[in-house]
C-alpha cells in the first residue's frame, strides 16, 4: 500500500459497495470520532476568542493566537487523518469531510451568532422579508437589485420560515448550512468517483477548503451558497449519467440533473454561467479522452443549462446584463490593456493589501499550488489520461494561472480573482491533491526514508500535513472577515460586521417606521447595508462629497438633487477614527485618508437653512434635504 490510497481490493471493498463500506467504516471510526472531538474543541476555542474580542480583546495578540490555535485544532487532525498512512475507509473519509465543513461553518455562525451582520447577507434578508410580507416574488430591492430576480434562496427560506415559525436568521442558517454541506459532499463524491480513491477525494476537498471564500461567501446567507449545492448536484448527476449502463437508472439521474441545473439558474446568475463552463470543460476533457458517452451527456446538459439561463435572462431577469456588464467589460479592458500596452490602465499588482505575514502566507500558498499542479498533471498523464473527468479537471486547473494573471495585472483583479476562487479551486484542488499525494509517495521511496520507514515516514506525513494546514490558514487569513475584523469586537468606523451595532440598527428601524420604505439615503460605508436592509431605505453610493467638504455649496446641492437624496445620515464617529477598510464611503471614496474627517465637515448641515435635523441619537444624526430649494 502507498500513501496515495488503498489497493484495488480495498477500493472495491470500501468504494463502490456502499454496504461493505459502512461495515468497514464502522470498525475504523475511532480516528474520525477523535477528529470530530478535537475539531469541536477547536470550535469552542474559536468561540472563546470571539467572546474575548467582544469583551475588548479584539486587538490582543494572545486572542489572535488563540484564534489560530482553535483553527489548528480543526484543520490539523483532519489533514493528518486524510494524509496519514493508516487505512482510510469511504465512510471515514466522508465523515472527516463532514467534520471539516461543519466545524468551519460553526466558526462562521459563532462570528455572528444572533443575527446577520454581513452586508450581502442583509441584502438577501431584505429580499426574504419582502416575500414574507407581501407574499410576492420579484419585489424591488434597492440594496441588491439583482437579488429578487434570482429568488431561489429567498423562496426556500421563506417557505421554511412560513411552515416552521422559525426566524429568518434561524431558517437561513439551516438552509445555507445544509446547502454548504451538500455542495462539499457532492464535490467529495465526484472526486471519489473519478479518482476511484476516497483519500484523493478527501485531500482534494481539503485543498478546496483553502479557497478564501470557503468559510465566507460559500457558506453565508447569500444566493451563491444555495446555487453551489445545485451545481454540485448537477455535476454529480452528469457523472452518473455518463457511467450508468442501465437506461432505467439514467432516467432518474437525468431528471435530477435537469432540475438541479434549472434551480441553479433560478438561484444565482454567476453560478449558472460557471455551471455551463464546468459542463463544457467536462465535454472537452471527454473528447480528449475519447469518451463519447461522457462528452454527449455533458454537452447535452451544458446546452440545457445555457438554454435555461438564456431564457431566464430574456424573460425574467433582463437587468442581469447591465449588472454583469461592468465587471466583464472591466476585465476584458484590463486584459486588452495588458496585451497592448503591457499593463492595465489601473495600477497593476492589485493584490490584496494586508499584514506582511498574511501576504507572505498568500504568496507561499499560491506558489506552492502553482508548483503542485504540474506534478498533478504528470500524474494525470501517467494514470488517468483515459479518464474523461480527470482530463477535464486537468484542463480546468489551467484556470488557476489565468486567475493569478487577472489578480496581478487586471484592474480590480483581486475582486474578480477572489470571486472566481470558488470555482477555480474545484479542478485546482483535485489536481493539487494528485500532486501532493504523488510527492509524498515518492518521498517514502527515498533511500533515506526507506532505511527506517517506520520512524521517518511520519516525518513525511507531518510535512504534508503542515503544508495542508498552511494552505487552509492562507484561505482563512486572506478571506473574510478581513484581518482588521478577524475577531468580532467594538464598533469599527466604516467597517463591515463590526459596524453593525445597536445604534445603527436603531437608526434603521426608526427610518423604516417613521419615514416609510424606499427613501434615498446618503450614508457612510458602515451604515449602508443596515439602513438598506433593516431600514428598507435606498442607500446610494458616491456620496463622499457630502461629508468631506467644509460647506454645503450650491454645486453640492445640485449634485444631491441629481441623486435625488432626501436624507443624510451622519455618524460623528467618522471624526474619531480612520476607516479600517481604507474608505469611509461607498462608491467613489477619495481614500488616502491620513486623519479622521473634521467634525465641522460632518456637522455643517446643522446650520443650513431648510435642512431639517430630524433624528439625533448622539453619534448618529439624520438630516432631511427635502426642503432645500434644488432649483437654487
Amino acid at each position, binding site marked *: 500500500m502507498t500513501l496515495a490510497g488503498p489497493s484495488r481490493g480495498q477500493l472495491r471493498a470500501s468504494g463502490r459497495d456502499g454496504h461493505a463500506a459502512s461495515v468497514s467504516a*464502522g470498525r475504523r471510526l475511532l480516528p474520525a470520532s477523535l477528529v470530530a472531538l478535537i475539531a469541536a474543541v477547536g470550535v469552542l476555542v474559536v468561540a472563546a476568542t470571539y467572546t474575548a474580542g467582544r469583551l475588548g480583546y479584539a486587538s490582543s495578540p494572545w486572542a489572535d493566537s488563540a484564534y489560530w490555535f482553535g483553527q489548528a485544532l480543526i484543520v490539523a487532525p483532519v489533514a493528518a487523518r486524510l494524509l496519514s498512512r493508516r487505512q482510510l475507509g469511504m465512510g471515514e473519509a466522508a465523515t472527516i469531510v463532514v467534520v471539516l465543513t461543519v466545524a468551519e461553518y460553526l466558526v462562521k455562525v459563532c462570528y455572528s451568532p*444572533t443575527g446577520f451582520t454581513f452586508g450581502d447577507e442583509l441584502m438577501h434578508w431584505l429580499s426574504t422579508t419582502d416575500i414574507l410580507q407581501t407574499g410576492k416574488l420579484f419585489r424591488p430591492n434597492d440594496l441588491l437589485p439583482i437579488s429578487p430576480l434570482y429568488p431561489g434562496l429567498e423562496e426556500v427560506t421563506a417557505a*421554511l420560515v412560513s411552515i416552521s*415559525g422559525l426566524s429568518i436568521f434561524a431558517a437561513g442558517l439551516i438552509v445555507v448550512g445544509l446547502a454548504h454541506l451538500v455542495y462539499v459532499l457532492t464535490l467529495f463524491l465526484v472526486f471519489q468517483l473519478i479518482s476511484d480513491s476516497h483519500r484523493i477525494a478527501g485531500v482534494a476537498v481539503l485543498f478546496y477548503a483553502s479557497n478564501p471564500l470557503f468559510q465566507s461567501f460559500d457558506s453565508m446567507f447569500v444566493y451563491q451558497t444555495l446555487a453551489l449545492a*445545485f451545481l454540485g448536484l448537477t455535476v454529480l448527476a452528469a457523472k452518473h449519467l455518463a457511467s450508468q449502463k442501465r437506461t432505467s437508472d439514467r432516467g432518474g439521474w437525468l431528471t435530477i440533473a435537469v432540475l438541479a441545473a434549472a434551480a441553479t439558474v433560478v438561484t444565482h446568475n454567476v453560478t449558472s454561467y460557471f455551471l455551463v463552463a464546468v459542463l463544457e470543460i467536462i465535454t472537452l476533457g471527454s473528447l480528449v479522452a475519447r469518451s463519447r458517452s461522457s462528452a454527449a451527456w455533458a454537452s447535452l446538459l451544458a446546452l440545457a443549462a445555457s438554454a435555461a439561463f438564456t431564457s431566464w435572462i430574456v424573460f425574467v431577469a433582463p437587468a442581469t446584463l447591465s449588472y454583469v456588464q461592468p465587471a466583464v467589460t472591466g476585465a476584458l479592458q484590463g486584459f486588452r490593456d495588458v496585451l497592448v500596452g503591457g499593463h492595465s490602465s489601473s495600477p497593476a499588482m492589485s493584490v490584496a493589501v494586508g499584514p506582511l505575514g498574511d501576504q507572505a502566507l498568500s504568496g507561499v500558498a499560491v506558489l506552492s499550488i502553482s508548483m503542485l499542479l504540474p506534478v498533478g498533471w504528470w500524474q494525470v498523464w501517467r494514470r488517468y489520461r483515459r479518464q474523461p473527468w480527470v482530463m477535464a479537471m486537468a484542463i480546468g486547473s489551467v484556470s488557476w494561472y489565468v486567475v493569478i494573471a487577472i489578480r496581478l495585472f487586471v484592474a480590480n483583479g483581486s475582486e474578480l480573482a477572489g470571486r472566481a476562487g470558488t470555482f477555480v479551486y474545484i479542478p485546482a484542488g483535485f489536481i493539487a491533491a494528485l500532486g501532493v499525494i504523488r510527492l509524498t509517495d515518492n518521498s517514502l521511496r527515498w533511500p533515506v526514508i526507506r532505511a527506517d520507514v517506520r520512524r521517518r515516514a511520519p516525518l513525511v506525513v507531518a510535512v504534508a500535513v503542515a503544508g495542508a494546514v498552511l494552505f487552509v490558514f492562507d484561505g482563512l487569513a486572506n478571506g473574510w472577515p478581513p484581518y482588521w475584523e478577524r475577531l468580532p469586537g467594538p464598533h469599527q468606523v466604516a467597517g463591515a460586521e463590526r459596524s453593525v451595532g*445597536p445604534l445603527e440598527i436603531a437608526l434603521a428601524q426608526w427610518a423604516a417606521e417613521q419615514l*416609510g420604505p424606499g427613501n434615498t439615503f446618503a450614508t457612510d460605508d458602515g451604515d449602508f447595508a443596515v439602513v438598506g436592509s433593516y431600514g428598507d431605505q435606498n442607500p446610494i453610493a458616491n456620496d463622499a462629497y457630502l461629508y468631506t467638504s467644509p460647506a454645503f455649496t450650491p454645486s453640492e446641492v445640485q449634485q444631491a438633487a441629481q441623486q435625488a437624496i432626501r436624507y443624510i445620515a451622519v455618524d460623528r464617529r467618522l471624526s474619531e477614527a480612520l476607516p479600517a477598510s481604507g474608505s469611509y464611503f461607498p462608491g467613489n471614496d477619495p481614500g488616502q485618508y491620513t486623519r479622521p474627517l473634521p467634525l465641522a465637515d460632518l456637522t455643517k448641515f446643522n446650520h443650513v437653512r431648510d435642512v431639517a*435635523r430630524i433624528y439625533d441619537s*448622539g453619534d448618529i444624526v439624520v438630516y432631511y434635504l427635502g426642503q432645500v430649494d434644488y432649483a437654487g
Partner: protein
Amino acid sequence: MRGSQVDIAVSAAVAALACGAAAAGAPVAVTMVLGIALFAMPGYLLAQLLLGPRTAGLERALVAAGLAFIVPIAGGLALYTAGVPLRRSSWLAVLGGVSLAGDVALFLRRRAGRAAPFRWPWGKWQLPRWHAAAFGAAIVIAACGVGLARVGAAIQPQPRFTQLWLSTRGTSAGTVKIGVTNDEGHTVGYRLVLLSEGHKEAAWDVTLANAHTWQRTVPFNGKRSLTANLYRLPDLTTPYRYVDTNGDKAPGL
C-alpha cells in the same frame, strides 16, 4: 411488507400533522419540528422515486436534500405564476401536496415491484459505544461553542443612547410628531423643551423605562421654525439631544 411502507406512513402523517398544527395555531416548538420534517419530506420521497436501489446512502441523502430545496423553488414560482400569494397556507399546500403525491407514487411503484422497499439506512452499521460517545461529546462541545458565542454577543458592552426625532408620518396636516426612545439600559428622566423661533412653546418631563418610547403630536403651522431640546435630568443646562426644522416647512415625507 408492512414494515417496508413505514417511510410512506411517516411522511403522510407529518404532512397531515404539520397542516393541522398550522391550522390550530400550535406553539412554535411544535410547528418548528413538524415544519422542518415537512420541508424534508418531498426531497426524500422524490429521491426514493428517482434513484435506483443500488444508489449509495450518502448519494441518496445528498439528492434528497437537493430536491428538498428544489421543491419550494419550483412550487413558489408556480404559485406566483398562478397569482397565489406565498403565505403559510400556500407553502403548506405545496409541500404537503408534493409529499402526499410522492407517497402515492412511491406506494404504487413499490406495489408494482419497481421501487425498493424501505430499509433503515444504517441496517447493519454498528458504531462502537465509545466512538458514539466521542461523536456525542463533539456535538455537545460544538453546541457549547455556539452557546458561548451567543452569550458573548449578549454581554458585549454596547453603546447606550437615547433617540430624539421628528416625523410627519401618520400625522394630520399642520402637525408634527416628536418622539423620544430610551435605549440607555435603565430608566431615565428627561425634560423635553419645545421652541418656536427660539421661544419656549411647551415643556414635558418624561420618565422612560429602558426600550420605551414617548411621543407627542404638536401643531406646526409652517410659518415658524421648530426646535426640540431634550435634557437628561438633572442636567438642564446643555441639551442632551436636539432636533430642528431649520426652516418653516414640515420635515418628513
